[in-house]
């Protein structure tokens, strides 16, 4: 389900990012169409991206794909789905790396690269603009 408030907020942030993004980009979470996972909870998604969860609910290993810092999808994803600012995320990983308890997800440079990477790996999970979703990808519901 798409929450209208969230939609509105997404639109506002799109506006703020620039008039060029007239497509009113909506970031969605995707997996390979070969991946059976249909939905994840918000907490599960956050755990996967903050390095606290390494498997899907069905037991398959999960490989989170991140996007470069300061890319539009990155900031929106973290604020919309994880409710974290880039600084908080950075601080989180900073601590995990420093104390040797984890490594941040691999990051790709843009939505297209993300689409390619996710489509090519059934265990991958990623986020990108909804407009770029094709047959190889499946949007999973975040509850």
């Amino acid at each position: 389900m798409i929450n209208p408030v969230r939609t509105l907020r997404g639109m506002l942030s799109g506006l703020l990012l620039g008039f060029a993004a007239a497509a009113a980009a909506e970031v969605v979470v995707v997996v390979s169409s070969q991946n059976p996972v249909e939905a994840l909870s918000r907490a599960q998604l956050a755990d996967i991206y903050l390095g606290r969860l390494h498997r899907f609910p069905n037991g398959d290993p999960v490989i989170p794909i991140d996007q470069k810092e300061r890319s539009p999808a990155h900031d929106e994803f973290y604020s919309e789905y994880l409710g974290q600012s880039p600084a908080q995320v950075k601080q989180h990983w900073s601590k995990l790396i420093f104390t040797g308890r984890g490594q941040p997800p691999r990051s790709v440079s843009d939505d297209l690269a993300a689409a390619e990477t996710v489509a090519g790996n059934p265990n991958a999970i990623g986020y990108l603009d909804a407009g770029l979703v094709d047959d190889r990808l499946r949007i999973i519901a975040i509850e």
Partner: protein
Amino acid sequence: MSSPENPGDGLEAPRTNPAVRHRLSRLLDPPILFSGLTVLFLAVIWTATLNLTAREHEAANRRDAALTVDTANTYEAQVLRALREIDNTLKLVRYRLDQGPATEALDDLRSRELLPPEYLFTVTIVDARRRVVASTHPDTAGDMPVMDYFQLLREDDGMIIGLPRRDPESEEWRLWFSRRIEPAGQQYSGAVAVSVHAGYFVSGYEAEALGERGVLGLVGTDGVFRVRRTGDDVSAGTTTDYDALVPEEAADNETAEVRLNPWDDTRRYTVARKLFDFPLAIVVGLSEAEHHAEVAVIERTYMWRAAGASLLVILVMAVLGRMSWQLHKARNRAMEERVAHAQRVEYLAYHDNLTDLPNRALFSRLLTQGMQQARRYDKRLALLFLDLDRFKAINDSLGHEAGDELLQEVSRRLIASVRESDIVARLGGDEFVILLPEINDGTQAAPVADKILAAVNKPFSLAGQDFRISVSIGVALFPVDGEDEQTLMKHADIAMYHAKEEGKNNFQFYSEELNSDSLERLALESSMRNALENDEFRLFYQSKQDMATGRIIGMEALLRWQHPDLGLIAPMKFIPLAEENGLIVPIGRWVLNTACRQNVAWQEEGFPKLSMAVNLSARQFLDENLLDDVKSALHESGMAPELLELEITESMIMHDMPRTIRLLRELKKMRIRIAIDDFGTGYSSLSTLKEFPLDTIKIDGSFIRDVADSAEDRGLTEAVIAVGKSLSLTVVAEGVESLQQADFLRAHSCDQFQGFYINKPMAAEEFASSVREQLRDKV
């Protein structure tokens, strides 16, 4: 065997014990006991609490120091690892640069994931002129920090740790780590550097361990903090005195001491440790104040608990103390009641419960004390012995309640009549004693006795009647009349009897003669008890003659006592005594029986019908069995009742008139004659006189005695005769001793007379012969 050296031991112990026991029992007094217990409990509670907080404090100190050391150890390991990773990256990049151009090298390494996460780390390659030739961060612009560069030029091989620099874009502090690039056998050709935001090195700051005021930091050996974090506050670039902060060599058993951190003036458990192989030292600190705040909370909790416990103890003790105190009070009250009861019992034992006066026992003690005092100060005492006159008659006629009331009133009057220092006591019955302890000579007792007589003589109002009584008082003086209690009492008693004999209502001082009289009286009294059995009483008879004819018409029986040792005793001497001891009743009965028998005997002998007058005493008249006694006397003797005449005195009939009238009517029914004896000496009113069924009045001899000389007595006698006549009574004159008297009486129509003029009292035989003689004369 007790040791001879310490013979007192056995005595000493019991002597000290009571004091100790007393002190112990004082300790058990509720106020002291419970206050003491409260203080004790409070002391225990607070000692324990203070001890506990002190221990808590100490434990917290140790814990904080240990925690600081632990944190420092962890932090040291983490920093070392991070630094080595960075150094390895530098070495790896430098190595790869040997095989190709810089950009290619970086891309290759990145694609093989050999570079640290770009998220945090930026790898940059500069040429010999400090220009960036390649970087993992596309936006990295400008040159390498100049300071680092110069340092690089100096250092031959090794990682340069630059001073923290603020990123102009993100405003965050960054640290630069660099190594010079020296391709094999070539000169310096540039450098490879890794920059990371400074916060990375303090991201392990755990608020749970370090709190909000702890410190985590890296300080260079140059004294410049590369980064320092307190709470969420990250800073860099400040300087401090490195030598003062970091010890030269780390001790094995390093402990965290509380030190003042100069950069923010905060006292902390601080550990500063030089890192192996790097020109850096770690600084770890735990705020003392912050950690003490936790302990303070615990301490405060203990204090509150202690305060609560104290309050509870005080409350419980207060309640217990109060209960105990009440118990104590109740016990005391019970004790007081017991004492009061004992006092009451003692009071009752020593006081007469009717009058509240001291009783005989107490008086005896007071008298003994008084005598001791008098002896010591050479003073005199007067002992007054009082006996109410006619009290028995009053008690018998008005009842005991009235008698008791009278005694109470008398005691009040007695107390009112003497001084406060004088002692009034009741010995029992109607006997009182008064002790005058402060007199100098015997005559001082006389006014007191007078005062008492006057006080008792005032009329009483009892049972609705006004009447008077009197008292007889005997006075004995200490020491002249007796030097001990018994003698003094006895002599006062004797003097009192003398006062009775002197006509009552007076007082008498004791004297030696009285004592002998009294001895005689005592002898009489004791022998009187046997006199009836021993048949010592005799009846004498005095004739009564008709005034006109001079004929004997009757006789009066008079009692005499033929005492075996004392001879014939006049009635005056023993009848009062018999009245007092009650023997008068059986004696009176004997008189009645004897008189009746005698009369019958004479009748049988052929005497004319002579009347027989018998005197009744007051006691006899009040005796309940009087009628029966009279009846049985008449019945046993067979005497004609109309010949019997009972003589009673005025005072006897005036007392309890209804009863007297009833009694006299009964006697009249039996046809017995009633005579009033000694008429004129009492104070019977004429109006009441006529209420009584009388037959005869006898004019007292005292009027007759002076009838020849005293016009007054003549007048009285005439009046009495007239009264008798007007009431149709027979008038008899007593004590007629001369012809003149007889003539006077005859002239005034007196009916009969008796007296020495004609006939003195005679024994039965003598009387019989005189009658016979007269009868012969007549014939």
